[in-house]
């Protein structure tokens, strides 16, 4: 089966044509750089996304503290993870890069703050 996808590794947006057999990529065409092939394989075989959101700050200078996962998580777990993150509250000063929750949904991925907040 041939699947058409657009590479999103850079703003060039190469139109890739990916040959898939039994859920595995056997051939990629249309990429202008090696990132295209890696992207096609990951996107077809195991699509992953960095999840960004915000958590509530209690008694802090910011009401909402922006956060992200430190590693990508499987695409199909995104909504579930977003629901978990909505329950988190932070009541202490935090620095950008600091971990505020570990092992989200057991995926061995941590949640880090992306903005200083006192």
């Amino acid at each position: 089966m041939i699947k058409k996808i657009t590479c999103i590794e850079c703003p060039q947006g190469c139109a890739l044509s990916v040959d898939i057999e039994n859920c595995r990529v056997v051939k990629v065409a249309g990429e202008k750089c090696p990132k295209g092939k890696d992207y096609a394989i990951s996107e077809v075989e195991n699509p992953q996304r960095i999840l960004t959101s915000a958590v509530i700050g209690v008694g802090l200078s910011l009401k909402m503290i922006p956060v992200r996962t430190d590693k990508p998580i499987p695409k199909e777990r995104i909504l579930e993870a977003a629901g978990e993150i909505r329950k988190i509250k932070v009541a202490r000063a935090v620095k950008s890069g600091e971990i505020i929750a570990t092992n989200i949904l057991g995926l061995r991925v941590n949640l880090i703050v992306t903005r200083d907040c006192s």
Partner: protein
Amino acid sequence: MCEKDLVIVGAGPAGMAAAISAYESGVRDILLLERDQYLGGILNQCIHTGFGLTYFKENLTGPEYAHRFIKKINAIKEIEVSLKSFAVHLTNENVLTYIKPGALEKIKAKAVIMATGARERTREMVHIPGTRPAGIFSAGLAQKLINIEGLLPGREVVIIGSGDIGLIMARRFILEGAKVKAVIEIQKQSRGLTRNVVQCVEDFGVPFYLSHRIAKIHGKNRVEKVDVVRVDEHLHEVADSMFSIECDTVLISVGLIPENELIEMAGAVIDKKTNTPVAQEINKTSIPGLFVCGNSFKIYDLVDSVSKDSIHAGYQAAEYIRGLG
């Protein structure tokens, strides 16, 4: 009246990059004005990733990208930062007036860099007919409400236009538990970056209507539904193509307009169509010593390019000041 070598208006990515670069090019008397209570500008509400891929070769969020510049600004004591400061007047001799709580200040600068960013085009500018109930937001306002204020603007959302902020907000609403019922784009192609179409719309199965437009917004107190029509290649309505989508919220994401009202007030020549300064060279205006950088000079797709060009603006201003002797 105070005097300064360089005044920079706006401490978003453009203003911060320009300030740092002006310092690095030898300017030692710099005032950086910011109307918000924080440095960083609009990056603070852009909590998604996708920033810094070319400039830092890393995939950063908006606040992380801003943080790298904020750290530098705070480390340079020759850059005086004035927060909650609102520029209200500018003359063609670079006399700038600004207001902050408790004071009105007037400053004569050798050079001024305006890094005032852009505003979003509104529903009114694209002439969408219908009523004017609650529930109509620019995409950027919705982003601020969710990411900064922790407020959810709506539960059933239709997004008009496929600009990047609109696409990003489609995903953001979904992650907050709301339903995005459609993205409507009048052109044949998305206006936003492909990665945003893939990761914000396709990932979540949001219906994406290209070559469609909103014919009418309905609702008395709150948005109730929108009428949508298909358009042909001349953007004319296709007969009998109308259908309705029930929703409580309409997001408008139909592009940005550079904010250049102050340089216009100063008498700089402005292109009426694009609201940008008319100039021979990047970052320049028709007034000597008055520079414009970032989204107020032209609308950029990527903040990385804003940083690069604004660094050049800082250098240009330093050269200009040096030339005055």
